[in-house]
């Protein structure tokens, strides 16, 4: 039951928003609106390492889409 903000035992999860910006959130706490789970849970370090792997383009999704359209148009 007891959660602890920032120590090794706290379980986090990898989360992202509609712009595909990634972050981490406490596994035991309700997720703020507009964010969804990526699927990874673990310690803070584990979650951040996972994010380093998958979030390779920091551009917001909408910008990526508009730039792709501009190229194809």
């Amino acid at each position, binding site marked *: 039951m007891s959660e602890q903000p920032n120590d090794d035992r706290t379980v986090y999860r990898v989360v992202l928003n509609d712009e595909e910006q*990634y972050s981490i959130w406490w596994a035991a706490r309700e997720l703020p609106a*507009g964010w969804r789970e990526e699927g990874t849970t673990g310690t803070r370090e584990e*979650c951040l390492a996972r994010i380093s792997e998958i979030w390779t383009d920091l551009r917001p999704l909408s910008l990526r889409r508009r730039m792709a359209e501009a190229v194809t148009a």
Partner: protein
Amino acid sequence: MNDQTPSGTAPGRLLLPALIAAQAARTPEAPALRAADGSVRSYAELAEQAGRVAASLRARGVGPGDIVGVCLRRGPGLPAALLGVWWAGAAYLPLDPAHPADRLALQLEDCDQPLVLAEAATEAALPDFTATLRLDADAGTAAGPFVPGEVPFDPEAPAYVLHTSGSTGRPKGVLVPHRGIANRVRWLVHKHRLGAADRMLLKTTVGFDAAGLELFAPLVAGGTLVLAPEGAERDPAALLRAAADAEVTVLQAVPSVYRRLVEEPGWNRLHALRLLFSAGEPLHAELCRRLAAAVPGVEIWNTYGPTEASVDVTEHRFDAEVDSGAVPIGRPLGGTQVLLLDQAGRPVPVGVPGELHVGGAGLALGYLGRPGLTAERFVPHPVTPGARLYRTGDRARWRADGALEYLGRLDQQVKVNGVRIEPGEVEAALVAHPWVREAVVGAVPTADGGYRLAAWVQSRGEAPRPDELRAFLRRALPEPLLPTVYVPVSAWPLTASGKIDRGALPNPSTAAPAEALVPVRTAAERLVAEQWSELLGTPVDEIGANSDFFQLGGSSLQLTRLAVRLTEALGTVVPVRRLLLASTVAAQAALRESAAEAGADAAPTALLPVHRRAEGLPLAPGQQGLWLADRLRPGSAEWTAPVFVRLPADLDDDAVYAALEELADRHEILRTRYLLRGAEPVQLADVTGPWQIATATVTDPEQRSRVIAAELARPFDLEHGPVWRALLVREARALTVVLSVHHIACDGWSSVVLERDLRALAEAAATGVPAVLPELPVQYADHAVHLRRRLSEPAIEAELAYWRRALDGLPTVDLPTDRPRPDLRDAAGAAHLFTVPAPVAEALATLGRSWGATLPETLLAAFAALVGRLTGHWDLPIGIPVAGRDQDEVADVVGFFLNTLVLRCDAPAESTFRDAVALVRDRSREARTHADLPFHRLVEELGGGRDLGRTPLYQVMFDVHEEGRTGTVTGAEDLEAFRSGWRVARTDLTVVLQRQEDGSLLGMAEYATALFDAATVERLADCWLRLLESLATRPFARLDEAELLPERLRTRILAQGLGLPEPGAGLRAVTGVEAVVAETAAVAPEDTAVVCAVESGAAGNGAVESWSYRRLLRRAAAVAARLRGLGAGPETRVALLLPRTPDLIATVLGCWQAGAAYVPLDPAAPDERLAYVVADAGATVLVSDGAGADRLARAVAAAMPDRAPLAVLALDTDAELAAAPEADPAAERHDPARLAYVMYTSGSTGRPKGVEVEHRTLLRMLRAAQAHLDFGVGPDDAWLALAQPTFDISCTELFMPLVAGGRVVLAGEQDQNDHRAQLRLIDRHEVTHLQVAPAHWQMLIDAGLGRRVLVGQTGGEPCPPSLARELSRRLQRFVNEYGLTETTIAATRWEASDAAVTVPVGSPYPHVTARVLDAWLRPVPYGVVGELCVGGVGLARGYHGRADLTAAAFVPDPYGAPGTRLYRTGDLARQRPDGALEFVGRQGGHVKIRGRRVDPGEVQGVLVEHPAVAQAVVVVQGTGPEAALVGYWVGDGHGTTEAQLLDHCAAKLADYMVPALLVHLDELPLNRHNKVDTAALPVPDLTAALGDEPYTEPEGPVEEALAEIWAEVLHGEPAQAPRIGARQGFFRIGGNSVRAARVVARIQEEFDVELPLRAVFEHPTVARLAEAVEEALRAELEALHLVTAPTADAVVSREYSS
């Protein structure tokens, strides 16, 4: 201080007629006027009507140099007429239609019979044969449009002629030029940020100059002018109604009007009001307080100025915490200069009164047609050749902080008995009396040709008696300033302008006496009356017992003679001093009743009665503590213990009086007084009646609260007694006796005993049946003697050993307060009542029982959890009262038995509530077995006595009263009735709970009002209730996880985190910064965009390169074309390595036009770092010059040989660029979400991180800064750009001015560290805005910044409050900003005031949210330190190439729109109840010194407050036990020594916070961003430096005598004592408070002066104490000199004994 610095001119050069025309063109549809009937006229309509007036006037031949009379009622036509006169090129002459025709005729004659604008209703008021133009007819129909500006406006041309009453009776016409009124109005608009949303009330009659301010300020600002209905200036209710109906935001009036207004109901409807200006009369703090209470949050400004200087010349913001009495008139407005000169025309020093002279832009041209008078009043400037000053005839003096104090008119100054008196000073002291509403003081002639000082007093309700007022004033004023006669006034005679008419006040000698004559009753009274009669010549039968010596015409000079006569007549010595306060016949007769002493002698053993010795008995240890406390703050009401006793309402006064006398007979302690015998206090039971018993009949609860408050506020005199008194409060159906007893004679238990006894005795008195009360085998003094014996020194030693261990390393509790802690603790208090609901109380009781804890223990654990959550610290000392009545004999004895334990509650944050309760239970039980040791002994032994700002050892207290100790006044309703009478706080916060019959707990939170506001304590109690609920429901959750914020408070705090819209902001970012700059440029392409200037060095002499917008954008377009060719486009990064030239700005704009982002490089950075940044950012192109390109190519190749070569654009050598055709930029629209720049921040750990910022956030920030700083309000606004382009504030400097259409003044490299050159740049290029770090501002001040009309900003590091105050004095505005690169330049900002005690970072910009959150990202209560988290649309995209760091720092925002992010800054902050944020430090920034938490910033703050310290930084050198604070300081040339500075620190800081070492530096080392470079500070040799303080020999007879006294007190026999040095700290070498009291007693013996005990605390060295003694001796001599005017030999006959 006498301000010789001209303060520059008002921003811009525009005059009011042009500004209003421009405003009308900008916002034609906006409402300009709101008439009394609610109808609205737009700016277009106003301009149209004014145009027609102007055209009509021109048609009648009116032009520049002419004067036009305006005789109109206050209607929509009035502003249009005045404006029309201006547009026609003329000046207006206001003619009040309500004035008598004779006066109007004089005015018209004075102006050579001008044409008058009138209307049907006013034409008749004008003299016959006046040439008129009817606004409602002729001027209304004039044909054809009129273009304002057809006639050029001349700053020196008169704007209006205003007649002021002259002493000769003929009005003088003051000619005020356009520059004058423009300067005044524009200052108001800029300084106070008047905008479109503001509505200002026009209620002043147009014949007074203040009307101009009301009229024109809203119109210049684009706001609305609200016209008050006819006659509203005389009808407060109507005025208030008008202000409320129109939702007025700005109001100005004279204090007399405010005084009547504030009495009116309906202020709650004035919720829009934000600014109150007072002018015209002295303003008193008392009135301000009432206004502030009526409109919470309103700013109150006191302004001052004569018509001859364009309305106002100074202003001061009222500060409730600082200002009392007369509110200062403050500092000169921008553009004006104030000099105080003596009679010979020489400037006077600070503190010395002088005549106020005004110079500068506001100066009038002179008096129309009166050259002689003009020359007399407008005199040559003593310094500036050719300039003039206006002699105001007002007296003022400079305060040390640079504010002016108004002292009155020169011609009102009076001389009474040879003493020069400023009536204003006396008036201010009088209105501080709670029952005085208003007072006027003046000199009135006496029969013998002299003068005496009279006070006319208007009171609230019943008039205070003259002797009451005199006694009250005596506390604040020297004797010669006390008015002798007091005249009650029910209504003031007023002048036409609403000010008090001093000439029409009633004559004191004919004014009716306030009360009926009471015939003399005793022989003594008759004797006194006879003496008076002989002295004053008043018949004896006209003198009553209640007659007042001074009211009958007696003067203070006659007191000496009276004293001699009375001494003779009464046969007892009557000192002159006593007569001053005992001014009635009855009081003087009572002086004879000075009692002698009685006595006894004894020495018993057990708790048995002891013999009463004549020299008194010793005090019990607890009593002694209270006696000391009383000596520390003599006369403080802090230790009044009130006992409220309900009695049957039908009991008559006589019965109660008799019962009270019986009560005093029964309890010896009520007849006891306390005095010093030698160096020890003793108690002596020799006080006899009559007792102080009074009756008050009250009709409503408010009145009841008032009389009780007054009763409890009265001090006791321990030395003379009695130490108790009683007040019978009679209501319709109730009788309550308020028994006030000094705590030295009473405790909680005693109050129950007293109540029981009194009820029984009262019943006995009423029925005649003797009361049956328990026998008292002993009295308190017996207990005191017994306890003294029991607590032998060995017993005390054993207890001390326990407590030393238990309390080792005890921290202090610092609850989040509303105000900084005063240096000397202020015991004033108040109480808040709350209820813990029965279900919660029962749940907690049950939980506690199951863990083996009592309810008090359980509640204490929960209270400790609250304190832990609020302070963030979990090792807490909490005071717990214990009864201290172990023996049966004392069960029914009254006296102070109470003792206090210090409980260490140290359950950590992560423990569960259960664990916390168990721990508190054990700690509490252990401590109770050591409860005998008197608390004050503990204080003496465990130190803590040093900090006079806190209660020693514990700062919060907690107590629970369980069943069995109930009095008659216990219910919530009863307590509430008496709560408002509570005036004392025993600690910072004391919570007492009492069980109620229904199972709930009644709580009372008693708090120090110096620290907390009522609302804060209420919130605190609410938070505790929420916490209790949470702990009761989830007892196994961690303490730091329990819920703390009640829902409503949480909602409110969350709402405050939102940035509020700023007028003018809110443009959506649909494109990029470059596109907005192009739009701006298109409006005025030839305007100057960039000035690149060099002031210093060989290239200096003001070399200037100036680029127009067209040139800048064409160059940018050419660069953009080349960059596209090199592959730059959206999301690509272009590195810039460029010198500070206009090309720097052009290149950034070029990058953006090409769609790319820029990466700034610092030419001064090492090659390695440059290569790292280029590679890390993924830059593909470099823009530089030839040399820079070569350098970087080599660096990149060396660091990263494998990398593809950079494409390079060398601006100086690129042929293609040079050949590019001149063309405007292509109108290409780029995505607003694309990257604008990547800037590298030096992370505290590891490699620098590249922060990526998008165009949409950058543009929002630039717009927000523009709006907040009013940049571009003046078209000539210019920003001096000094920052490195690698620092994101450079974006504000380089691009915000271009977005707003202003100028960038780009300082070259040479000038970046040359502060004098920077000042020259500001002057030469008319810079209006500047941002630099605090240290840099200090250097600008040192370089001669002076006073400037400049908007200043700072940020990046904490700004010292003294600097913020100083700059808000010198500059037009001073703004403190907070932000990080990750939040795009800035997130919050705060407007500094010159009274700022702290420098918050303020509130979020409109597009930003800023919140203080705990580790779980939950909001924390006000004042509680948490992490500052920033959300909204101002956040950076993230860290380039560091997804993990980005994800960790930018987290989901639980409070923002769905899917938005929150940036965790890692900075600590707290929020004030008004929403403002205060920066506290970086996370983990605290250090520990000798086991105590220390914030070096706090120490630094104290150091820089020293007047001789210009700059200081405090850092920790060494680690662990070796850690020590080292202060580095730079002097300001005034000279001081390390020892003096250490003394200064020691006086303000707890011992462990005083720097171990001070190091003097010539200047502080700075890094490239002008912040203090702590790494570059020299590391001193601490071991050598911290050796023993060197012995300094005492010098002079006083120091030598004091050193001997110390030696004697500290070490017994002086002969064997170690020598005492002049600089050794008393408390470091074994002193404590008892010894300090002995020192004070010995000083009194030795020098015959009485020092307060705290003198030893405040001057803890021999040298400084000697100064205090000498000071006291001097004061004594001066007092003697004043009273008796002795000859010289009487003064010198006193020698210091040695």
